[in-house]
């Protein structure tokens, strides 16, 4: 099928193409569509996991960046799943939990060093109720005993200087007792230049803390930008979904819309940084929306002309899937 160009639909009828409204209207005779949340090893995930595995093997500190929505957290979860926590027998009838990967996610609402400290402790087991000073000492000993090899900070673009300073202090104390885990900062950027991310701008300052932190990024190419999905990788993802949804949609054909999908998602309104790459979040949102409408209408697959898929990506491009207007029924 020839790829369709995106038409300008503004002003848009709010009732046009709403997956939620379609599901609500079909709620009486059909259960809602539930997207499959199984991990799909996309090209981006493979690249990111390869970098994480490299850091795990070498102990190098790294600053890893990618565009928002590429699937960093999903790939990180898969990386943790591949290196789960185990237990080993300790002295005097004890069982020690061995945690090779400790990760936490920075949020904008919690930006103190103590909050980072408690978040890291939560990955090791139930944290005890101690004062801040005693807790810091306890955390250092516990990380060393748990044989942590990598500390991953997700959403590192939200980090503050205080948290960066604490991370330096923590790793310094660990080094004093012979434990040297690698640190990976996962940050989102809005361009392909990784040096524009906030952690790097903090590290690059001429301050003592920043300089000491910078000293730890002493490996080859410690700052990395992971590109999004290419055309062929998008095709692989669509083919995978076609297979996964076969039982619900016997006549589903997604792979043939690869070129069209790439064209839609590389539109300047979707790819503002002009990377020429596809973000997994946008791809998933568009495909799931089309599938939800098809499910609500009881169709075994997408429309032959791809108009539902097209409408989904138009909706995504113009205003996203954030707002739906549930109108009252017409009284006549």
């Amino acid at each position, binding site marked *: 099928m020839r790829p369709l160009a995106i038409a300008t639909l503004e002003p848009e009828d709010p009732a046009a193409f709403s997956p939620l409204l379609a599901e609500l209207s079909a709620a009486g005779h059909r259960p809602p569509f539930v997207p499959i949340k199984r991990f799909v090893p996309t090209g981006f995930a493979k690249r990111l996991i390869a970098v994480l595995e490299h850091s795990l093997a070498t102990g190098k500190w790294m600053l890893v960046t990618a565009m928002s929505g590429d699937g960093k957290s999903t790939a990180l979860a898969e990386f943790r799943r591949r290196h789960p926590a185990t*237990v080993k027998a*300790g*002295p*005097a*009838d*004890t*069982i*020690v*939990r061995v945690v090779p990967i400790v990760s936490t996610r920075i949020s904008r609402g919690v930006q103190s060093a103590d909050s980072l400290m408690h978040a890291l402790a*939560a*990955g*090791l*087991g*139930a944290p*005890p*109720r*101690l004062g801040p000073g*005693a807790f810091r000492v*306890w955390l250092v*000993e*516990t990380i060393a*005993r*748990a044989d942590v090899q990598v500390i991953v900070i997700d959403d590192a673009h939200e980090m503050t200087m205080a948290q960066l300073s604490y991370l330096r202090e923590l790793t310094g104390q660990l080094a004093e007792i012979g434990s040297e885990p690698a640190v990976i900062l996962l940050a989102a950027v809005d361009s392909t230049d990784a040096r524009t991310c906030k952690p790097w701008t903090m590290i690059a300052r001429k301050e003592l803390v920043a300089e000491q932190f910078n000293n730890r990024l002493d490996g080859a190419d410690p700052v990395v930008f992971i590109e999004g999905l290419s055309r062929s990788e998008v095709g692989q993802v669509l083919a995978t979904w076609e297979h996964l949804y076969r039982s619900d949609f016997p006549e589903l054909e997604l792979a043939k819309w690869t070129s069209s999908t790439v064209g839609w998602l590389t539109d300047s309104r979707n790819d503002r940084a002009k990377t020429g790459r596809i973000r997994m979040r946008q791809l998933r949102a568009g495909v799931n929306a089309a599938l939800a409408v098809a499910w609500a209408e009881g169709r075994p697959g997408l429309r032959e002309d791809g108009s539902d898929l097209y409408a989904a990506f138009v909706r995504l491009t113009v205003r996203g899937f954030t707002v739906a207007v549930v109108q009252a029924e017409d009284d006549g």
Partner: protein
Amino acid sequence: MTSSSLPVSVVARRGELLYGRMLRAEEANLLPAGTLANMTGRHDVAARAFGRPGFGVLGTVFDHDALAALFGQSVGDVEATTYRTELRRLFGPGVSALKLGAVRDFRVCPECVAPGARFISRSVLLPLVHGCPRHHIWLRTNCRCGARLGAFAKQRPFTCSGCGADWSELPRQPLGWRDDLRQRRVVHAYAVILDQTKPAVIESARRLLSIDRDRRWDHGWCLADDPAISAQAVAPKSVNSLAGVVANLVMREIPPERLLDHLELARHPDLRCWNQACPTHGTPYAMCVSAYRSNGVESYCSECGSRYLDDRMTLTFDRGHGSPDISATSVARARARLAEYGQRLYEAALFLSSEDEPVSVEHIFHLAGVPQASHLRARQLRLVELVHSVLQRQAWSKSKVAQRWNEESAFRWRYPASRPPGLGSSAPCV
């Protein structure tokens, strides 16, 4: 282990006290003593009170679900570190810790808490237990510096809150042989009572103690020399805790297994023993039904062996029975038969016990030609006791301990006081 458990978990140990397990977990996780208590203890209880011995009996001041999650164990494993299961089985769900008895001080055995072991037994919570049953040394309540030992006094685990000395450095004073004997019997009595499953143990103990009038052999010293035992050995009607039961059993040298026998008897509330020579005279405590006949209920007294048809006595072995239904001649004939039974049982027991195969009382009765009637198993007739003593004497004589101990050793239950003719000394029970 789950994410809700501590980074380092401790393996459950049988017979360990809850406080000991919490301290072990805190030591393994490099936490100060009392951290887990503060995390799982009730908010209406002062933090400094968590280490009280009384709270460890049932452990209700702590959230057992939270503790189990922190330990990475089941709630049953946590409850096994308290006496909650045993006391609820004996007294019901609303039991108070005072049913076990009052313990005011936190005690430890310096040998048990040595580094590498770090074991605090549940038995330190038992009243009347002042020595370690494993190492036979005195339990300590105070440090060398004079500070009272506390489980969760904001110090490093297993150390003194005053001077910081490790508990394993406390002096080790071995128990004297009399104290050791007392402690063995106290621990044995507690073990027997807490392991059995029938409730109403205190009521049964009151009955047993009130009817017990046997005079026992005096070692030359009294087991009630221990002030704690004598203080707890109150009158039977005032016994209200397991500590009182144990104190009375130990002081009177009553084997705790006899309490179990007393619990096992099926009582009939409408029947009475009318033998005036029987300790249960006028009471239904020991009455059991033999059979229901067309002309009445056949019953017997499991204490004195007297038989009845409804309220009429048909057989007794005691001369001072006071019943008009039985003549002196009948009593003499019954006593003669009893003596013959005893002789035949003694010979049969000697014969069968010389074999290496295990034998039962029923087997010996059958071989001796003694009727398998229930009333012949009555306690005061001492036929069953005779068989047991012969069997135990044979087993005892083959044991290594017997080769060391002489017959005058005090490490034996001396019961009954008078020795049956033709027999040697009774075998030890401890």
